[in-house]
């Protein structure tokens, strides 16, 4: 880990319960690294027994700027949410990285977990977050020539004409 420890969510410390009832109980351990710490933090978890990156997705907080965040975490528009899974400890940890709108770049986890390949492509496709170091950062769900990133909150719903090539124009 780097000199600056990532911010731990206050909820993470009180995760002890009587019976681990469901797969993802509410108070999951969450860390908020900065972009500089991100790779180191995830690498630390990987070396600490988190064998699998279960999920990676983007979130656009444009419409909810006042979301609760621990002190010291930059309040940016985008978030990359990584859910790591430790099979040996049967434990999950969530890494939330805030990414500014002006510079939507996040380091890619591909070198640590090759399984994020499709997930990072999806986050790029849906939110326009660029992953530095990704081997093939192309659109995955939308057509290659699609304009815009559909899951962004300012992407108009129902107002965008069909963008497929050679589609007839509006009549």
């Amino acid at each position, binding site marked *: 880990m780097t000199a600056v420890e990532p911010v731990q969510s206050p909820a993470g410390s009180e995760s002890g319960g009587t019976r681990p009832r469901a797969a*993802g109980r509410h108070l999951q351990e969450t860390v908020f690294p900065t972009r500089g710490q991100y790779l180191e933090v995830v690498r630390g978890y990987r070396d600490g027994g988190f064998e699998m990156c279960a*999920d990676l997705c983007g979130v656009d907080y444009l419409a909810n700027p006042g979301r609760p965040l621990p002190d010291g975490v930059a309040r940016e528009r985008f978030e990359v949410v990584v859910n790591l899974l430790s099979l040996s400890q*049967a434990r999950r940890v969530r890494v939330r990285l805030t990414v500014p709108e002006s510079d939507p770049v996040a380091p890619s986890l591909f070198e640590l977990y*090759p399984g994020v390949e499709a997930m990072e492509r999806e986050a790029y496709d849906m939110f326009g977050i660029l992953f530095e170091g990704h*081997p093939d950062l192309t659109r995955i769900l939308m057509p290659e020539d699609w304009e815009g990133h*559909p899951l962004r909150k300012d992407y108009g719903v129902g107002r965008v004409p069909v963008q497929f090539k050679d589609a007839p124009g509006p009549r």
Partner: protein
Amino acid sequence: MTDADASLPAGGADDADARGATDRPVPHPDTVLDPPPSGDVFLSTTPGGEVVGLVAETSEGDQELSRRGVTDDSQLRREVGAVLRLPEGVVVDPSNIDVEQSDDDTMIINMGPQHPSTHGVLRLMFELDGETVLRTKPVIGYLHTGMEKTAEELTYVQGSTNVTRMDYLSPLHNEMVLSLAVEELLGIELPPRAEWIRMLLTELNRVSSHLMWMATNGMDLGSTSMMIYGFREREMVLAFFEKTTGLRMNHNFIRPGGTAADLPDGWEDDVSVICDTVLPRTDEYDELLTGQPLFRQRTESIGRLSAEEALALSLTGPILRSTGVPWDLRRSMPYLRYDEVDFDVIVGTYGDNFDRYSVRLNEIRESIRIIRQVVEKMPAGDYRVQDKKVTPPPRARIDESMEALIHHFKVFTEGFKVPEGEVYTAIESPRGELGCYLVSDGSSKPYRMHIRGPSFVNLQGLPLMMRGGLLADAVAVCSSVDPVMGEVDR
């Protein structure tokens, strides 16, 4: 191109001739172009007639492709990599990639998106050396309908109608993962009967999903009897679902707060009949397939995967278990009442097609074992939580109480508000870890709902499983992953 010749200044053409082809190895804008043979790709030649490269008309203007001989290795690798992704990361030694071979000896072909063995609209690009598959790229998105975006426009009550259409072979699992996430944010505790009903239905759904897989896998390998048998048994389960929920698929039965209704009268008998029929039939499948030499030759040591590779690529479910990793969320991180029932986690050894087949076949047996325990242990009580905020009033109350009518109307039009926060829940679907990352901003609609579809992630294993295998086995490997494209593309 007589017009082009005529328009060239006479002196310029003479100069080019005088200097000769050897002085100008690279193409020049003045290069005389032959007429396109087929329309969009044509050869560019020097005035001396030597072919220097290809010009392709693209949407971004003409692009010159220089001949293979003049491109360097890194350029070539990048160019091929743009078409077919390398089988990923840790597991590939870069020196293993034969750059020379990717020139003329190999061929790139497409399978799909309209191909029966891709189980939907999956497109696979193969790089072939003869019949050997070198690299594979799954191309997805043909069924993308923006369901995660749609979810942001639907209330939590309406949400399960949306997610149930993702993995259409195990719709109840999708509904359950969303419901668990919503309940987690609401902080409500389910009545025991609701939990047991959910377990009963999702295990039955696992049986029907695996039966469907047995059927389609049988068909992909040429065993049409298996296909008919698999569909026949699956129909029994679906008939029970229809009786319980009203629909064969896309039930919208498991909702935040419990289930939509109680189980129908006589459900114990129906479930017992299903168990008593399907269990002996799995022995018949065993006889039909497991010992059959043809089936074994087409599955054994085909599409092999090691445990490290499966973990690195985030593969879950039967694929991960077939490599010998005993990871089942029902056992390792129990939800509902899975810690109160007795069942085995089936693991394989070699991680090949045959292991994936036997894991799934035996999981049908384990599911039936769970279902029988659920029938025994089913408690009486409410099938949904008695929380006025979440649960609509019973139908009978609506006729006699104005408040109940208003309340009912409110729940189904406005929905209920969910406290601000975010949660990740995961359950074991027939295909692997089905996760839901739900963000609430305190309103009655999800701020963001992300479904971690196991098929979407599992497809990443295809390039690795197919590498070095035969093209004919590609169909078998693709089938053994059990992708459901509705969930891959969402």
